[in-house]
Structure formats: C-alpha cells, structure tokens
C-alpha cells in the first residue's frame, strides 16, 4: 500500500467525521437549501473530469471526458445558483434582532 493511499484514507476518515459534525443542528427550514448547497459541492467531480479530459488520447476517452465536464459544470454552476435563489427568498424577513 503506497504512502499516498494511506494519506488519502486518512483524509477520507477525517472528512466523514467532519461531514457529520458540520450539520449537526440544522433547522428544518434550511434542509432544502442545505441539500441543494451540498449538491453543488459534489460538483467538485468536475475537476476529476478536467484531469481526465486534459490527458485523454482516444476519441472514446475524449467523448466520455467531455460529457463528464458538461455534467460536472451543470452540477456546480446550476447547484450554487439555485441554492442562492432559494436563500434569496429568505432575505428581509428574518425576525428583527432582539426579538419581534
């Protein structure tokens, strides 16, 4: 087992715990925006598609990589924008500071 694999597994384990800890006390109100926001974050798969595309040789690899980049970009761009639109709906209607 290579040292880099061990390092990656360490990162994996820590990220699992971090992911659980981060959203421990989210109010129901924010379930949808949070799902949508994290949905955009797994669009990070785009950078994997870029790495594949940048070193693709055969036509098949290029085709697969191109579709993967389009998919990943839709995931990232659409995901963040839709989340922002959802959260935009909440602005200006929060209870005033110090209670209503």
């Amino acid at each position, binding site marked *: 087992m290579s040292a880099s*694999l061990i390092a*990656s597994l360490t*990162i*994996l384990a820590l*990220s*699992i715990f*971090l*992911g*659980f800890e*981060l*959203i*421990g006390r*989210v109010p129901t*109100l*924010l*379930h*949808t925006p*949070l*799902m*949508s*926001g*994290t*949905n955009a*974050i*797994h669009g*990070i*798969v785009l*950078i*994997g598609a*870029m790495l*594949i*595309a*940048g*070193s*693709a*040789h055969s036509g098949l*690899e290029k085709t*697969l*990589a191109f*579709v*993967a980049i*389009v998919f*990943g*970009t*839709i*995931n990232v*761009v*659409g*995901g*963040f924008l*839709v*989340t922002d*639109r959802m*959260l935009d*709906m*909440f602005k*200006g*209607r*929060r*209870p005033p500071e110090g209670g209503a």
Partner: protein
Amino acid sequence: MTVPLGLAQSVVNLAYVVAAIGLILGIKRLSSARTARSGNWIAAAGMAVAIAATFTSREITSYWLIVAGIAVGTVIGVASARLVKMTAMPQMVALFNGVGGGAAALIAAAEFHRLAPEAGHMRGDTVAASMFSALIGSISFSGSLVAFGKLQELLPGRPLTFRGQNVFNAALFAATLTFAVLAAATEQQPWMVVLLVAALVFGVMLVLPIGGADMPVVISFLNAFTGLAAASAGFVLSNNALIIGGTLVGASGTLLTILMGRAMNRSLANVLFGAFGAPAPSGAVASGAATDGQVVREITAEDAAAMMAYARQVVIVPGYGLAVAQAQHATRELADMLEARGVSVKYAIHPVAGRMPGHMNVLLAEANVPYPQLLDLDEANPEFPRTDVAVVIGANDVTNPAARSNPESPLYGMPILNVDQAQNVVVLKRSMNPGFAGIENELYYNPKTAMLFGDAKASVERLVTSIKEV
C-alpha cells in the same frame, strides 16, 4: 509522498487545501439561517479556486476540450437555474444531482478505458475505486432522473410496484455487484459496460416504487450517494480535493437524509423499501370502509369568505397545491384583507409540506409574508382549538387525522397539523383525488369541513373578491 513534487504541482495542491477550507466553511454556514447565503458563496469560491488550480495541473496537456465542456455546462447550468420556477426547484436539484453522479461514473469508465492496455497489472485500489464510482454514480444518475420524472409528473407519482419487487431488486443488486467483481477481477472493458448498464437499471428500479411524497428524502439520499461517487473518483485519480469534497457531502448528506426522515417519522429503510402509499391490502380496505357512505360538504367562495371575515382567528395551512398554482401572492393578499378587518391571521407550516422541507417557507417569503405570522408544527397545533377557521390551501397528507388515529394507515405516527381541532375547516382543493401519497383523507368527511373546489390561486382570488363585498 516520498517523491518531491514540482513547484507547480505543490501550488496546485496548496490551492486544493484552500478550496477544501472554503467548502467546509460553506457547509458550516449553510446550516444556520443567518449565514446560509454567504456560506453558499464561500463554498462556490472554494470550488472556483479548485477549478482554477486544476487548469495549471501538470496532468493537463490539452485545454480546448475542457474549455468547451465548461462553456456548454455553464450555459445549461445558468439557464436552468435562472429559468426554473420556485415550484420546480426540487426536481431541478434532482437533475443537478443526477448529472454529478453521471460525471463520476463517466470518470471511472474513462480511466478504466485509459488503463486498459495494462489489463492484469492495474493497481488494486484504482480498480476498486473505479468500480465503486461507476456503480454508485450510475445508480445516482438514473435514480435522480426517475425522481425528476416523478416530481415533474412525467412519470406517475404513485409508487410503481409489483409482486416480489424487493426480491427482484435484491437479485438485481446482487447481479450488479457480481458484474463489478468480474470487471475488477478480469480488468476487461466489456464487464465495465455491463456493470454500468446494470447499475443504471438498478437506479431506476430503486426509485420507481417510491411514492412522490418521499422524493425529498430520496433526493437527499441520492445526493449523499453522488458525494460518495465523487469521493471514490478521487481515489481513482489520487486527488485529495475530490476525496474531501465528495466525502463531506456523502457524510453530511447521509445525516441530512436521516434528519429529513425523522421529520416525517420514517426510517430510511421504510422510505426505500416500504413502497409508501401503495394500495396496501389492509390499509386500503380500512380507509375505504372509514369513508364509505360519508358525504363531502361543498361551500361557495362567498360563504367561505363570510365565515373568514367574521372570524377572530384564521390559520392558513399551505401545501403543494399552493405551490403548483403559484397562489402565494393571492394568499398574502387574502391575509392582508382579513387583517385589515381585524382578523388575526397565522400560517401553519408543516416541516414536510410541499415537496421539500422548507418549501412553503421559501414560497411565502417570496410573497413577503411577515416572519412572525409563520408558525411551525409545535407552535401551530396549540393554536387550532382557538381558531375559528383553518384554511387548508392545497395541503393534504400533513393534515390527515389518520396519522393520529388509524394504525393501519401508512401515515400513522407522522406528526400532523391538527386542523380538525379548529371550529371550522375550509379545504381548497382541485378535486377529491387523494394526495401525493395516494391516501384517502378522512378530514374531508368531517362534518366541520367544507370543500372549496378549484385551482388554489383561482379559489383564493375568488375569496379575496368575496371578502371585499362582505
């Protein structure tokens, strides 16, 4: 790492660290109302850093394909995010999730193809991660498309079931796993293709039997799945940014799915394999008997308006019907007119009203409904006994008393809004068709209840006109 990295590659990896911090802070801030919006942009900024850094990565030798792909994806992503109606948000999230899963599966397939000349000598961890990524990514892709189809009503929202479905699905999943093992063991391309096809079919079969009312939980579940697929794509490519981003979503998405299930008083297993809302033999007979020979009372808009105009307190219970009809502005107008007459108006928001948790809050916020008027489940229920008229606008299952009283009902145990405790109930509804879960609602046969049939927006507008004349 024992091999020293070139300077350029070190910069890329450091940029990934910055990106990861952005993603983590983003998720953290997204889970609190005050900071959510900035959190979304911090996460987006982290993503931008990761993408920019990847451009300078030494693995990339050709740019035009990447630039073209990002350009096409950006146009589609911006257009769909901007043009989608607020009511269609849930299915849009399902689509964005699906393409993410699809991307992870394609990465696995492309890398497997690239390594094909080394068949028999591939690295074990790379092969295993490819299989996992292809499997989970494909399930997420096709499952999300089915969820989209159901929410968009291209497919029937009711659970599609057949005898022995769970057994069939278990066998299909076992076969899919077998193909993954065969592909990994032989390192031959055709098995990879078979695996991808089988996983796509499994994704469809997994989501088809799940009722539309459960789609939010399913989308959240598939969201976590896509996260895991992205993380395993990170193992395929030895890329830590992918591992961190994907795993964060996989873990937080799993917890979010559990929290959402809890808000509906359902376990994840029950959502996935329970075929919720299917015509269960005993439950259907029981609810059929309960409504047999009972009559529904219809009311005119004029009568309903008079009842509301002379009430002391009116509680509005919005549901998906309000969202579909885009009735939020008309509803706000109705509430304003009632308040001008001295009626106290509140909104009772069930945590899962609509198609997603928080769906109603978003819509009512769009219509500038004052925040203090919104009551959540725990605040609303004590108000109903003091309420003269409960106005149910396009909500159904979240008001069904069977959830309290009928252990046979699939809804039994779900916390509901006790609208039947109000003095009068007016239900605005398109027709007597059962709700999204496909379950009869005995509330409509309650002698206190009067039905105002029609499109929610048209009905609310008729109420507004009638109140002007009262």
